[in-house]
């Protein structure tokens, strides 16, 4: 005992953060900031692939049967592969790595005031597994038979038998990549949770932690608690594919519905896994740019707990008409509609935060407010789908598609841009160009609505998802509906073109932008108290925390912000 404690004590004194060689700084880093950026850049590259896929299949829908410029002809099998991998990439390889792993890695140690993650090498390992998973997924597009095309939910028996899916190795590599990605995030997640639980700066109480950190950690806990059964399910599916077992095959005694339950038991909490980090980031951004304390910090936190808890008991609303017992559906309707209560309360608190503020519409603030507005539409349309009877009409229609793009697009893309533009000065030590930033915002936000608002109406008209050519259905092949499809597609093209503005702004600002001061936005949290970009080891002397993260415009103070680590007089 005594000897061991002595060893621990010796360890803690041994650390000094020297500058590292290029190899250890950028290729095999243990520094959480570099690992975080690796995640973000990998995620952005995957986002480009996912965006390219969406371009290809939207063009096919608007101009069926024609050769898509920069892609080629999209046949039915290829269309399935494109939509499947668009969904998979955007959720597992963009939303999760950028928002949770990327910003989680970058922000958690900075915001809670410590020098690194508690397990830096585990952190590196989890990124490397993630990278391998991304490469496996990309490899799956090029094997014989092409990439997997059974939709991102990969319902068996379609996904479990090559005879049905016609993508023998595509399906196996797909499930392998997804499973690897889960393992990577499990390892990363353990790191995040233990870091936040154990390594907070002295004085930082539970209620002083910035909402962004809280929400990332809650998201990770949700992920850990929901993904286990699906990892087991992935093992079972893989064995069905490769060894010929029949866990999900009715003729061998299995049940295809089992996969649906396993998948959605993970899949619904997953929605909140990606939502919460963005909600947290947005909380930080709107408080800074409205110079307001967050309205009801505790309320917001408790609603997040409630949402997280409820998210485990709503999963079957994805299966209302998928063959589950109709009596069970009633239970899930109740829980599903109930989940609107904490989320509505959270939304009300965010909007109430703006009340009486001093709002400055800088680019990050525009993104954050854009998120609130767009997510509001995504949220309210969810009520339709939570009602089982309406789900009879809307299930797997474009209404569902429009609904979840109104949640996932704000979460993933808008949230990501809010975070990138907000923390860009801290990451690279330069400011981004405001004008270009605003052009990019409007050039993304307006086309985004033009893409997905019309899709609600296509859903009302009875158009189903995952169909590669609606000309085959006379009721849907009318010129009016086709015009809507063409409009949505053209909006997508416009939006994709405007992303070039961001890429230009991002790289030019990274090298040529105006030098950023330590605290360009006059924010309170700890990461703004150190130089931009922070050195290896973050803090010269580790900070002590004296107050909560949102003490803006405190009466009786000359400055309208009050850094968390500023000692009281």
């Amino acid at each position, binding site marked *: 005992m005594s000897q061991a404690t002595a060893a621990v004590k010796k360890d803690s004194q041994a650390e000094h953060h020297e500058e590292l060689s290029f190899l250890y700084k950028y290729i095999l880093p243990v520094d959480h900031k570099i690992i975080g950026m690796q995640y973000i850049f990998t995620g952005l590259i995957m986002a480009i692939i996912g965006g390219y896929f969406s371009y290809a299949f939207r063009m096919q829908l608007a101009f069926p049967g024609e050769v898509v410029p920069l892609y080629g002809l999209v046949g039915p099998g290829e269309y399935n592969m494109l939509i499947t991998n668009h969904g998979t990439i955007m959720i597992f390889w963009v939303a999760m790595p950028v928002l949770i792993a990327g910003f989680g890695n970058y922000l958690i140690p900075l915001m809670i005031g410590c020098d690194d993650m508690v397990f830096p090498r585990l952190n590196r390992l989890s990124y490397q597994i993630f990278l391998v998973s991304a490469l496996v997924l990309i490899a799956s597009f090029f094997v014989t038979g092409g990439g997997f095309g059974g939709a991102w939910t990969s319902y068996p028996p379609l996904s479990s038998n090559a005879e049905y899916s016609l993508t023998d190795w595509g399906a196996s590599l797909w499930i392998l990549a997804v499973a690897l990605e889960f393992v990577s995030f499990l390892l990363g997640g353990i790191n995040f949770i233990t870091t936040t639980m154990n390594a907070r700066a002295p004085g930082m109480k539970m209620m002083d932690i910035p909402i962004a950190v809280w929400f990332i950690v809650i998201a990770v806990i949700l992920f850990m608690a929901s993904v286990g059964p699906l990892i087991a399910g992935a093992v079972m599916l893989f064995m069905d594919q490769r060894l010929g077992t029949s866990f999900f095959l009715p003729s061998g005694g299995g*049940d295809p519905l089992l996969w649906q339950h396993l998948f959605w038991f993970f899949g619904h909490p997953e929605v909140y896994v990606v939502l919460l980090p963005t909600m947290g980031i947005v909380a930080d951004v709107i408080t800074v740019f409205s110079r307001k304390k967050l309205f009801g910090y505790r309320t917001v936190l408790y609603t997040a707990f409630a949402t997280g808890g409820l998210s485990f008991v709503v999963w*079957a609303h994805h299966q209302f008409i998928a*063959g589950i017992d109709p009596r069970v559906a009633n239970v899930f309707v109740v829980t599903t509609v109930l989940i609107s209560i904490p989320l509505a309360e959270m939304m009300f608190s965010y909007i109430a935060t703006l009340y009486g503020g001093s709002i400055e519409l800088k680019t990050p603030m525009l993104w954050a407010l854009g998120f609130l507005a767009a997510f509001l539409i995504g949220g309210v349309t969810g009520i339709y789908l939570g009602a089982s009877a309406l789900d009879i009409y809307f299930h797997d229609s474009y209404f569902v598609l429009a609904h979840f793009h109104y949640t996932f697009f704000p979460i993933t893309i808008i949230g990501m841009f809010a975070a990138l533009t907000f923390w860009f000065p801290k990451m690279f030590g330069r400011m981004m160009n405001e004008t270009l930033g605003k052009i990019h915002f409007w050039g993304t936000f307006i086309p985004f609505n033009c893409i997905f608002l019309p899709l609600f109406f296509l859903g009302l008209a009875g158009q189903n998802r995952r169909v590669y050519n609606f000309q085959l259905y006379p009721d849907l092949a009318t010129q009016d509906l086709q015009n809507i499809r063409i409009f949505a597609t053209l909006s997508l093209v416009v939006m994709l073109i405007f992303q070039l503005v961001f890429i230009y702004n991002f790289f030019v600002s990274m090298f040529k932008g105006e030098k950023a001061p330590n605290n360009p936005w006059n924010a309170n949290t700890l990461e703004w108290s150190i130089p931009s970009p922070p050195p290896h080891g973050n803090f010269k002397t580790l900070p002590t925390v004296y107050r909560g993260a949102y003490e803006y415009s405190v009466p009786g103070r000359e400055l309208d912000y009050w850094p968390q680590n500023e000692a009281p007089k």
Partner: protein
Amino acid sequence: MSDAHTHPNYIKIWYWLLVLLAISVVGPMFEIPALTIITAFGIAIVKSYLVAAYFMHLKFEKAIIWFLLTLSIILLGVFFFGTAPDLMMTEGDQWIDCIADKSCVEQRL
């Protein structure tokens, strides 16, 4: 390292575990289903409690770890009961498992 607490007598716990193992092996020999379930799973729970509480020092651990482990078991229970109506029955409200009663169309499997 574990904090200052007196060690339980590990050998004694081990003896108990072996006794329980013997019971769980002997139990099914009476071929009474109820007794089998009790000796098999009841004893498994007692054994796992002994291992967790004494060998894993859970008895001396902070409440949060208990909370964590209990929560994970509860969530698995939620999953079980949400899934059971579909998987544990061969017929329900407006559906029947037609493999079981061979009424299905011939499967192309």
